[in-house]
């Protein structure tokens, strides 16, 4: 679900991306997938998000010749069904941050891992 499916989506829609204007893939990852920052527990979720970040990095190399941009983004701890009611960020603010990242994406953004607020996160 978290690793193979995003890869399959990109494979399946590769040609659509190639023919588009923005040519951008956004993988919604999580700070919990940052190997550097990890604090234990939730191992299946953490390891699948770390593996998704590897998919992002590897695809950024493979798809560079098509000028396709691939990046991972941490949406923040959001008041969704997953994040729960006491989460810090509203869905509106998170989505607006991700939208901005997509609009600002360029070749330098490909293969990176961003926070929803714009800064780069460690692998």
């Amino acid at each position, binding site marked *: 679900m978290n*690793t*193979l499916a995003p*890869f*399959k989506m990109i*494979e399946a829609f*590769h040609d659509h991306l190639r023919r588009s204007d923005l040519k951008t893939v956004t993988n919604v990852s999580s700070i919990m*997938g940052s*190997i*550097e920052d*990890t*604090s*234990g*527990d*939730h*191992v299946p979720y*953490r*390891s*699948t998000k*770390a*593996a998704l*970040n*590897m*998919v992002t*990095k*590897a*695809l950024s*190399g*493979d*798809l560079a010749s098509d000028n396709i941009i691939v990046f991972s983004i941490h949406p923040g701890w959001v008041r969704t069904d997953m994040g729960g009611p006491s989460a810090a960020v509203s869905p509106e603010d998170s989505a607006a941050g991700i939208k901005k990242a997509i609009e600002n994406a360029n070749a330098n953004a490909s293969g990176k891992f961003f926070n929803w607020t714009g800064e780069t996160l*460690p*692998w």
Partner: protein
Amino acid sequence: MTSMLITGANRGLGLDFVRRLAPEGWRIHACCRNPAKATDLQASADTHDVTIHALDVADFAQIDALKKTLGKEPIDVLFNNAGIMETIQRTLSLDHTNQMFDTLDEDEWMEVIRVNTMAPMRMCEIFVDNVAASERKQMLMMSSIVGSIGSNQTGRWYHYATSKTALNMVMRSLAADLKDRGITVMSLHPGWTQTDMGGPSAALTIDESVGGMVEVVKNLTPADSGRFIAWNGEDVPW
């Protein structure tokens, strides 16, 4: 007496660890899928304190069975060494077309993740009390720089790469979760080595790779928990 439980011990890097440590008096539980064919490993078992166990790490019931065999015996070093590039045996090359973009094989990919990522986690869960009861209290993961996100510039080897990235996350999570029990957890990068997986044109001999890793392992302290260290002692980026 120091003891080690090691998977994938019948050939390559795992076998060389056994050959080096057994003569030094280590008690070794050496696991492999098919002991009947492990003639090199058997030679060590004939002359040293090496016990061979049949274990296919992909079959978690076999891990549970091994736990019953070993009971509460302390294990100083649990070494998750077994790993696969793919389910068929091939030498590492740049043309693994089944692991390149536009060639998704989900069954193959899931099997690689089961062996390389989930099985080490399962081993650590099942044997955590044995490790905690030992002197050294160490859990080692045979990872690879191919799983380093920061080092990956080229794509390819998606199954293997993601499985080792995820293994490094398992390692880091366990390092945090088991800190209070005094357990040191770390990942090793063996270098590109002349094993069955690495092929004959690899940069390092098994002797150079394992020689370096043995020194890394012998010098580990609790402060090293959560690190990803290459055969030559250098840290590998995530």
